[in-house]
């Protein structure tokens, strides 16, 4: 039997790759707030759709400073990047952050953007790009991300195979409140990578002895001990390995592997009774676990070494039975996957609402035994593929729902068209008449306003004469002219001139009163004209709204229909391909596990027979003595 190689365990830890969306200042843009509302619920498609649209609209504005998103545009760019990362759109992630980075912003914002961009590149395994982004950080750095930047830089160096550079940074982070045990563990791995084995062991020893009750810190403590133990095991320093393996908690995620390794370490130094203890615990654990299955064989092997062949035979028998049951389960699981039930179970809504959905999957009738798929389900590639499959199923559901609305929209537009089309020509005719009257009155109004303004600067009393006065004045002027030409009696001419003088006198003396009255009347008219204009504008708006309610929708709806149909076609194709890959990986995994169990079964069968023989021989020897 083979021990778990160090390469499986000794991989650096990466923390906080995707931080939650955070808004540091008071919210001024409701639509950004709405995007956050969805993001906080883990609904990143909905969050992205809203924020992406909002940012695009903002980018098209002539005066963005008047828009409420102006106050949050940097945070919106960061959030877009975060949402895209969380929605597994790595290709797009970073686009919005680059925009912030290239804008004229202060050091704090620019450095935050550079850090976020570096984080995205690192997650996409684009190490040179990640380093380039980190190198852009200069000037004032926000305190909240100072350690994060250095920890990321150390991880990039480590991933690039530059452990010495990483060590330099990680050594400075050993007292960091944010990283503590994680920095110690990664420093241990960096030492190991640079060939400084003893330093690595010292550091892992330190990380493995931390006193804490924090679940994450406890996990890193276990991990450190397991790695330190495995380093010793690989160097065949079994005595040194045992204390580390014993320090791993019995209820932690690494306990099974530690128990198995502890048993082998004890066996290697001939402490067989001590090997029995961890293997007894492990053999009673979840039967689908690899380590547990191995312990089911290792335990009777140890009893055999102790010459307790009867008990060994019993345990081999138990193992054989258990392996038989598990092989049957695996056969059923393989069959279930071949019948397509694995994928059907994966996309069931009620299963996915449970955070332990992978475990719950096994409770579904005819679904495969998911405990055997746990390792595979946890692998990065499978997770990516599985999440993509689930995302595709979600997208498909969404589009089908949208498609069901297209007919309703068409009908809505048709009903509006049927309603407005017969009414509008008559209304338009009436409007045209009203419009020409409005224009005429408006021109008249403008002329009167101009006349009033002229009179204020150049008084012209005759302009304010009543029509009757104007007629009388004209008649008097005509009579005066005739009298002058015809040589009329001077008494008659004087009489005409006196009458004219009376009229002019009245116009001159009443000029100011008349101008005030004219002005007042004009002001009253202004009010009426404003009211008329409001009603006119309201009519124009309603008229436009009626047209807008049914005109111009045909093309967008039909374009959306085509896009949606194309998208569904693509999604179906991708789901089939992605599903096939997932099924194949799951089948390969289950087949490999079945093969392993069959091999274990063969060993158990031979060992069982051997144990019976030895038990019988010992019994015979005992009886003969």
């Amino acid at each position, binding site marked *: 039997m083979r021990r778990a190689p160090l390469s499986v365990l000794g991989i650096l830890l990466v923390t906080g790759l995707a931080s939650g969306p955070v*808004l540091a200042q008071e919210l001024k843009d409701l639509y950004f707030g*709405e995007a956050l509302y969805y993001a*906080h619920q883990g609904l990143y498609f909905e969050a992205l759709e809203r924020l992406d649209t909002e940012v695009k609209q903002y980018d098209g504005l002539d005066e963005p400073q008047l828009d409420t998103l102006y106050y949050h545009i940097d945070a919106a760019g960061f959030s877009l990047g975060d949402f895209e990362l969380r929605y597994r759109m790595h290709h797009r992630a970073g686009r919005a952050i680059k925009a912030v980075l290239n804008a004229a912003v202060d050091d704090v914002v620019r450095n935050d953007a550079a850090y976020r961009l570096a984080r995205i590149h690192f997650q996409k395994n684009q190490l040179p790009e990640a380093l380039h982004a980190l190198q852009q950080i200069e000037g004032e750095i926000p305190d909240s991300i100072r350690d994060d930047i250095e920890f990321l830089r150390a991880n990039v160096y480590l991933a690039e195979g530059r452990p010495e550079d990483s060590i330099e940074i990680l050594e400075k982070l050993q007292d960091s409140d944010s990283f503590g045990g994680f920095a110690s563990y990664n420093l241990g791995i960096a030492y190991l990578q640079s060939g400084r084995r003893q330093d690595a062991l010292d550091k892992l020893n330190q990380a493995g002895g931390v006193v804490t009750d924090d679940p994450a810190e406890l996990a890193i403590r276990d991990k450190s001990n397991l790695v330190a133990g495995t380093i010793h095991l690989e160097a065949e320093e079994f005595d040194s390995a045992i204390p580390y393996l014993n320090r791993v908690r019995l209820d932690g995620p690494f306990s099974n592997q530690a128990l198995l390794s502890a048993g082998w370490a004890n066996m290697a130094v001939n402490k067989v009774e001590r090997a029995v203890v961890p293997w007894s615990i492990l053999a009673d654990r979840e039967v689908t676990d690899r380590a547990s299955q191995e312990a089911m064989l290792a335990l009777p092997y140890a009893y055999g070494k102790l010459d307790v062949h009867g008990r060994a035979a019993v345990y081999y028998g138990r193992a054989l039975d258990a392996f038989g049951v598990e092989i049957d389960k695996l056969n059923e699981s393989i069959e279930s996957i071949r019948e397509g039930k694995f994928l059907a179970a994966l996309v069931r809504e009620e299963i996915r609402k449970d955070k332990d959905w992978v475990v719950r999957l096994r409770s579904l009738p005819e679904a495969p035994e998911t405990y055997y798929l746990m390792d595979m389900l946890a692998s990065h590639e499978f997770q990516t593929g599985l999440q993509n499959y689930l995302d595709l199923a979600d*997208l498909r559901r969404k589009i089908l729902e949208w498609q069901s609305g297209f007919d309703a929209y068409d009908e809505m*537009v048709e009903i509006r068209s049927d309603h407005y089309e017969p009414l509008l020509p008559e209304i338009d005719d009436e409007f045209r008449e009203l419009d020409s009257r409005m224009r005429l009155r408006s021109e008249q109004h403008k002329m009167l306003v101009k006349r009033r303004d002229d009179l204020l600067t150049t008084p012209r009393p005759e302009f304010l004469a009543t029509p009757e006065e104007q007629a009388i004045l004209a008649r008097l002027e005509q009579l005066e002219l005739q009298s002058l030409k015809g040589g009329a009696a001077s008494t008659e001419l004087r009489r005409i001139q006196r009458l004219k003088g009376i009229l002019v006198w009245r116009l001159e003396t009443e000029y100011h009163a008349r101008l005030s009255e004219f002005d007042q009347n004009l002001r009253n008219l202004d009010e009426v004209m404003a009211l008329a204009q409001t009603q006119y504008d309201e009519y124009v708006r309603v008229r436009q709204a009626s047209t807008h309610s049914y005109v111009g929708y045909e093309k967008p709806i039909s374009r*959306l229909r085509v896009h949606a149909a194309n*998208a569904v076609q693509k999604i179906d194709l991708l789901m089939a*391909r992605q599903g096939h890959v997932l099924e194949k990986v799951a089948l390969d995994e289950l087949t*490999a596990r079945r093969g392993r169990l069959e091999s274990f079964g063969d060993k158990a069968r031979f060992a069982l027979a051997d144990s019976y023989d030895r038990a019988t021989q010992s019994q015979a020897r005992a009886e003969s003595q």
Partner: protein
Amino acid sequence: MSIRKSAALLALMTVFLTGTAVSQDLAGENMKSLDGQVQEIKSDVLDIASDLRNLEERLLYPSGTQLAIFVAVEEQQDFRLDAVQIEIDGELATHHIYSFNELEALQKGGVQKAYAGNVVTGDHELRVTVIGKTDSGKDFSSTGTFAFAKGVKPKTLGVTLAEPGLGSDGIQVGDW
């Protein structure tokens, strides 16, 4: 547990649980190539969603009559919001019962678009009823009535909720 530590724990378990099967490497290549295509279709569908949203807004809520009401929870509020009911001019506009996730999203600063609809220009009355539990575990129900005017532009109202206290029903409404 902090987000950073949760992420670390997840990474830790993922690293440990990573299988060694060679067949997975080959499948991994297939998955990577599919991943790029999945990202493309996600982008396409996001564009469709955005276009559809714009179309729906134009078709269903023309700017002249559009009214949108958003609900937010005041900062540092730990009361449990169970439901919100909004009436406009005496007619029920919306009634929403909050799930745990939705409430948490509001408490973290998210804003919910609770209602989108149409009203004519002029003066209107908004009535907001909030049902929940105070921080001390006592049931409460409070109602606030507010006047608002709808002009020719789209109207957006923000309802901000807080735990009712002395002299306040904890409901504020403002223009946004």
